[in-house]
């Protein structure tokens, strides 16, 4: 199993450019997440998905869009990049193990994508 993979690992964008980050997991997990990590701020949730075809906003969704067309993939899009979106982006997935759609399991993280917007 590859676990959770992210593409690309590094990217430099100019202000106003667009890009898509791809996250893929091979563990058949229902839930997937996109976080950003900034110095001193820990991990902040951007968007998440509880299943194929579903998405929901997290703590810091502005400036980002997501899609979950296939269960194993979760895409994060930046339509018009801004310097404030310079960050390290992590994707994660989670199995559903309890009744009611909740899970006691840990989230599995990808290796991260370092994005710089100039």
């Amino acid at each position: 199993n590859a676990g959770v993979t992210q593409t690309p690992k590094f990217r430099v964008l100019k202000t106003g450019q667009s890009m898509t980050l791809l996250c893929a997991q091979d563990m058949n997990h229902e839930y997937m997440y996109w976080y950003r990590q900034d110095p001193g701020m820990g991990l902040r949730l951007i968007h998440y998905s509880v299943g194929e075809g579903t998405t929901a906003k997290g703590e810091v969704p502005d400036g980002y869009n997501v899609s979950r067309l296939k269960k194993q993939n979760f895409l994060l899009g930046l339509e018009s990049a801004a310097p404030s979106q310079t960050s390290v982006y992590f994707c994660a997935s989670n199995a559903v193990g309890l009744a009611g759609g909740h899970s006691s399991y840990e989230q599995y993280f990808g290796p991260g994508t370092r994005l710089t917007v100039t």
Partner: protein
Amino acid sequence: AQKVTQAQTEISVVEKEDVTLDCVYETRDTTYYLFWYKQPPSGELVFLIRRNSFDEQNEISGRYSWNFQKSTSSFNFTITASQVVDSAVYFCALTDLTNTGNQFYFGTGTSLTVIP
């Protein structure tokens, strides 16, 4: 509302010293789960431990131990006889049954430097 506080931003210790990383959490739910993750300088996030709210037994895994106290809403992490390889950022996280999507709430992390 859910919240995780890691008040120690940075800690430095000399190799072989013991060190405790503090984690204080807030939740209104009676069923919740706590986690610790390690982020070494290479950047990946490594899962260390999961604890549920009904199990207050302390856990020991090699040089690592965890102390869960519901009375003080704390889930502290102790490294005994620290080593240079323990240098990393450590995150504490919480999830409970009141939030949708099994969201995790992370603390801001504690950066541990072990000096040889």
